[in-house]
């Protein structure tokens, strides 16, 4: 695997550059290129060393790196809305987050729904999008001991990040709500609801919490 560094910070512009570079390299294709994966500020290129000329690949990366954007996102990028039932059994940590942040559960909901988040990258499990950044006043560390089972659809906060668990897995994020949205469905095209660079807004489901 070859790793291309576009920067060393979690920053929307750096992330956008990594995503555009990955897109360009994917469009170029080439024999022996198995997968091209953008991260927060890097692009991973998985390749077959016996089929790929590394010198040519490095030259292609240099070419594709020219004129990368200096903006976070095009202004017309659509916003995906994700409906969330905050609190209750689906959001067992909502009250504790509110307590720790010195505000009411309703304030936490207002702050979580009050921003548009950027999908920086996907990882952990299929369809799990790392989104940021949450309002500084509701930044919370992960649980010291992760839960053994976090149900699918759980919406969580960890540090400045927020995300939705697509399937039931162990997990340490602070769970504040649950969504019926299907984050990942291998029978659907595209299988993942969210892709790197997407914009997301959480919407409070009426009658919840």
């Amino acid at each position: 695997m070859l790793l291309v560094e576009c920067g060393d910070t979690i920053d929307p512009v750096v992330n956008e550059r990594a995503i555009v570079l990955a897109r360009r390299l994917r469009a170029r294709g080439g024999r022996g290129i198995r997968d091209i994966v953008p991260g927060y500020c890097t692009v991973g290129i998985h390749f077959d060393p016996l089929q790929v000329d590394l010198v040519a690949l490095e030259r292609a990366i240099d070419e594709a790196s020219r004129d990368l954007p200096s903006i976070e996102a095009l202004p017309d990028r659509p916003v995906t809305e994700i409906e969330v039932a905050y609190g209750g059994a689906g959001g067992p940590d909502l009250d504790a987050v509110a307590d720790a942040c010195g505000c009411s559960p309703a304030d936490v909901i207002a702050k979580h729904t009050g921003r548009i988040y950027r999908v920086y990258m996907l990882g952990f499990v299929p369809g799990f999008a790392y989104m940021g950044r949450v309002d500084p006043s509701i930044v919370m560390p992960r649980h010291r001991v992760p839960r053994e089972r976090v149900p699918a659809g759980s919406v969580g906060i960890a540090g400045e990040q927020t995300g939705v668990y697509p399937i039931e897995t162990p997990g340490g994020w602070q769970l504040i709500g649950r969504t019926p949205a299907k984050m990942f469905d291998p029978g659907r095209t595209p299988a993942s609801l969210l892709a790197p660079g997407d914009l997301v807004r959480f919407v409070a489901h009426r009658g919840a919490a």
Partner: protein
Amino acid sequence: MALVILRPGLLSTVQDLGRFGHQASGVSVAGPMDVFSHRLANQLVGNEPDAATIEVTLIGPEIEFETDTTIAIAGAQFDVACEGRLVPIGASVAVSHGQRLRFGRLHQGARAYLAVAGGLKTPPVLGSRATHLVSHIGGLEGRALAAGDRLPIDEGAPVVPARKSIGLTLPTGGRTRLRVMRGPQDEWFAPEAFQALSSVSFRVSPRSNRMGYRLEGPPLVRSRDGEPISEPVGMGAIQVPGAGEPILLMADHQTAGGYPKIGYVISADLPLAGQLAPGDFVEFVACTRQDAVGALIARERQLLRHSGLRGA
């Protein structure tokens, strides 16, 4: 037509070369832990390398065939019998409708691959039949095989018997040497860490699985605290969490990781890593990129040489 799992063994899964092309959506590649033996088994029955096989782990299954077909087993040295007849590892063997194949004692290695002429025809998911256990994708319902499972196969196509004497050289006495290239975060480690990495044996912890091997040994001292920003990772990466206990990422690894990586096991040696079991020992040896490519070419030649042995 199908083969039926009578007893599943410890951990038997359907694998092909892996689910590439979807890591940007967080979809792990999965695929065989020992890709060389998977390919060899396929080659012995005339399959393409990407045909699905059964990966067998430490304790093998018992299987009944509902059709005449040709099979081959490659990888770990198991005693395998079919109706009282010994089934050699690394050779193609004809089996008949109603016959039962039983894996017995394991002598060397950890994982074997059972290929059937035409390959296993479980439904592909996102272009691959590979089982990824954590995300429940691929294979049969995304899980390990269980008693009573039926795996669709082609009706017996005639295959020229083939024999392969040059399989993977399996770890002997539970010890393996793996070649490693540095990086991509080698600057996160103190010089002693590299010295320790290349001079000490690490033991594969019982807390190891298809996602990765935890390696027990002296902690690899880091020169920096904190964690790098999570980035795409590949099989063979040696991640070092804060406590200094390295984790060797294997076939089912997550698509990205946030621990510094002191190095990568070279592609040519990954099949050997796939033959390790908990309690085995591993030593790492530094390797240049040039030597890594050379080693991979040599590995590839082993498979090519076999093509010429067809029908022997």
